[in-house]
């Protein structure tokens, strides 16, 4: 019994040394997850992951970019980046009507977004090894979704970096996010402008390497 456990442990550590860590980019809708995913993928592979949009729920299926090799201080860290649909407790098609969308399209988008949340939650259950939790720093971070997701991530003992995105905007308030999650490291950044990405990569290498 003990022998088998030992063998299994050594096998799994063998694999974890070889397999890239799968890092999920999580957060509420419109926090800039896809913009960040594209920034990371473009910086290190040259390709993008998915279309970005100011309309919420543009990403409705989890998208993955494998073998993103990040070089830091002479070492390289390989991760799989998973961009996930924004997590929310309510999806309402009428929200999309404001963005000049036809009702049928809005209803479909709403349904797909709901499926996307289910998919994101399912991935969180078993398919990610670490989390980049992206928040819009112009928004109040004290929400049910944020509390619940960060709680789930903590309960899974997953390494997590909180990213206070959109620091290029005037209303950005990084301190508020730091205060909301004092137990985790918060990094300010603008994924859109590429501000502070060096520090983000340092921390990714440190946390997920």
């Amino acid at each position, binding site marked *: 019994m003990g022998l088998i456990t030992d063998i299994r442990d050594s096998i799994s550590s063998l694999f974890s040394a070889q397999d890239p860590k799968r890092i999920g980019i999580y957060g509420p809708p419109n926090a800039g997850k896809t913009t960040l995913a594209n920034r990371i993928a473009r910086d290190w592979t040259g390709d993008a992951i998915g279309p970005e949009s100011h309309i919420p729920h543009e990403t409705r299926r989890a998208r993955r970019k494998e073998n993103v090799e990040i070089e830091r201080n002479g070492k390289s860290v390989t991760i799989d980046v998973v961009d996930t649909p924004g*997590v*929310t*407790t*309510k*999806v*309402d*098609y*009428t929200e999309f009507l404001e963005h000049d969308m036809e*009702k049928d399209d*809005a*209803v*479909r988008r*709403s*349904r797909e977004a*709901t*499926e996307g*949340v*289910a*998919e994101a*939650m*399912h991935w*969180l*259950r078993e398919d990610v090894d670490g989390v980049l939790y992206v928040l819009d720093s112009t928004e109040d971070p004290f929400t049910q*979704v944020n509390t*619940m*997701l960060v709680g*789930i991530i903590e309960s899974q003992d997953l390494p997590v970096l909180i990213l206070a995105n959109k620091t290029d905007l005037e209303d950005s308030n990084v301190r508020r996010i730091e205060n909301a999650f004092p137990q985790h490291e918060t990094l300010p950044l603008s994924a859109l402008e590429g501000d502070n990405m060096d520090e983000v990569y340092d921390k990714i290498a440190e946390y997920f390497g």
Partner: protein
Amino acid sequence: MPHQCTSCGQVFDDGSKEMLSGCPDCGGNKFQFHPSTEDVPAEPEPSAEPPDPPTPDSSVARTVGNAAATVRDLVGSSGSQSAGAPEDDPSSRDPAPADSIPSEPAPAPDRTPPDTPASREDAAQADARSEVVSPDEIPTGSEPSTGTEPPATDDAATSEDLGTDPTGASATPVPTGDAGGRVASEPSEDRPDLSELREELNDQFESIKVLSPGQYELNLMELYDREEYIIALQEDGRYTIQVPENWHD
């Protein structure tokens, strides 16, 4: 012509790759299996649907499925249910509690234990499901269960608890697999107010509440906790789930 799309009726050969990315005609992703030898009646989705409520005690996994089916049925036929049911007598409405209470915990109806009506239904279901599999499967499946499956025991005990408490007040949600079993037996527990019942069920386990087409409320903890994974919603409130492999055990 084994596989048929449940939305548009197009038929695909067994092993057809077209189906893998959904029906090319209508995009539907639910298919029913049509054995060529036997004409199966047009049941909506025998493969995707969890087993029907007549076998409530089989396993936690299945009772969760049953609960989902029950709610769907309740939602689907809410008018007739509430209209036909007497509002005053808790015990007279549904015979199901009577079935579930006396069932002894130990040999609780597993897949195909012998000699009970429930087991015969199970055997029939297993038979229907295993048409494509070699016939040897069936005798194997119908070997008497040793009756040691703990979820079934829990479930029977739960039903008993509920039975002794006609108010159902003890039915507080428990965030474990048992919650599914408990919920599954609740519809037969009398609830005069159907909307109240539905709300309670929603609170307990429904992971996605469809307020209207395009408007949804999501229970993130449920979505996270449940093993099965909702992969496609449909306008009529039905949904397709991906069932974990170990449910087939």
